[in-house]
């Protein structure tokens, strides 16, 4: 199970990484492995305002479909258009090319409240 030390995590397996003024959101390596080969990704539209915990998309594999929840509140400023043609990116490089959305956070302290990498790794290992 790969953990990106620069990210913080939700127990529902989303990660949030600071990049400049924005937060990059995706799903962890553990999540992509449990889902299996990703076949389709549906994401919220650019411009959408979300509260922490709001659903911002769905990731589908052949055997499962997982809702994606916003790790922080803010506005969606970008979505990863590459995933439409190549959803496998999520499996191959979940923390890099397989990113899902970028959020301009409205309440940055929320990021601190997320799980740190070590805690997330322990929780995910228990599953």
């Amino acid at each position: 199970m790969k953990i990106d030390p620069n990210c913080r995590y939700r127990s529902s397996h989303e990660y949030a990484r600071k990049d400049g003024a924005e937060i990059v959101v995706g799903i962890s390596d553990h999540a992509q492995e449990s889902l299996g080969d990703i076949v389709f990704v549906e994401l919220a539209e650019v411009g959408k305002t979300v509260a922490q915990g709001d659903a911002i998309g769905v990731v589908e594999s052949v055997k499962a479909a997982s809702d994606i929840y916003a790790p922080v509140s803010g506005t969606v400023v970008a979505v990863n258009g590459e995933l439409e043609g190549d959803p496998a990116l999520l499996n191959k490089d979940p923390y890099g090319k397989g990113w899902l959305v970028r959020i301009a956070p409205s309440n940055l302290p929320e990021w601190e409240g997320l799980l740190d990498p070590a805690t997330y790794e322990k929780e995910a290992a228990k599953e």
Partner: protein
Amino acid sequence: MPYIAATDRDRKAMLERIGSGSVEELFSDIPASVRFPKLKLPPPLSEMEAMREIEALASKNLSASSSAWFLGAGAYYHFIPAVVDALSSRGEFLTAYTPYQPEVSQGTLQAIFEYQSMAAALLGVEVVNASHYDGATALAEGLLMAYNAAGAAAGARDKAIVCADLDPEYKDVLRSYVSAFPIRLEFLDLPPEAAAARSDESTFCVVVPYPSFSGTLGDIAAAAASAHAAGALLVAHADPIMCGLLKSPGELGADIVAAEGQALGNPMSFGGPFLGMLGSSAKLVRKMPGRLVGEARDSQGRRGFVLTLTAREQHIRREKAVSNICSNQGLAMLRACIYLTAMGRSGMRKVAELCWSKAHYAAGLIAALPGYAVPALTSRQEFFKEFVVLTPIPAAEIAQKLARRGVVPGFPLSRYYPERTHELLVCVTEMCTKGQIELLARSLEEAAE
């Protein structure tokens, strides 16, 4: 005991292996006070006796094949070629299960793929699913599909405009299906193009029948344009036989097309099983409920077919599924597949041409009878195989009188709309002969005297 292979000796051996003293002991978890009830059911019959009883009961029904038959209104008497029964009754099709193990279900899966392809061509859409329970539920699921596609969570668009001249049973089903959602159904007594022109920023879809329940054809292209201009989707209900001759609703701009496929190789069977057809443009496919079959390859590159996009369905999404539908109408769909293959492009066109010609001939004869009128002719509206007749005496009375002459003249609209006492919905298909049509006209004339 019928249909049970185990003998007493077999049971004894099985109980020994299980380590149980008796069959009753296997049910010891059942609360004793309610265990082994005496069911008040009739005693069993032998096969011979059962068939005799069934034949006697069947003879108490009026069969369309024994009358001059002009009754439609949602269930249609069309020709079914012999190949449909012969092939669909094969045990390998009839007694197979849902194709969850694709390697041993290629027969069923390929037939579904072929049906999806032919139905898409017929309805003028890019994708058709493996079917719903009937045309009414397909239309309801199509409406919910449009609601989901509009971004249900956004909440802004919550109104569906529906043409009121839609089969009343369909309207009831729409109401039942949307009752749990914050959807407003607005029924407008207007033709499709006028109804669609009323779309506004709260409208997520416009539902139009083509043809209407009265049998008339509206301007679907204009309806599509109006709906789209207002940001709404057009959901059309089609007659699949009519699609063999006329431009399909899909071709005319409908985004979602539902239809009743009973006319395609399925008997009327007192109302079921029928065949709900549902199709849409490719971009709406992820919102489409029901089963979908797609092409796939195995590791040797061999082509096969498999249930796909299953993550939408109830067994994976559970409460977040687009619909709760689990089954499709398997065998009814297979019959439609064989029918469409047997008819082919020329047969479908011919059947529709026969319906059109015979219906227009009948309408002409009836319109010429004293006391009778056919509004579609007087107001120059186009119609396909059904048309409303205005009668000089109550239509229900006419139907009663004609039943004795072996003529079922149509559907008295008062049975759905009590105030419309002098209106009869007449249906003419390729099954009606010239002689029967002329008998109908003569009988109507005599009934009014």
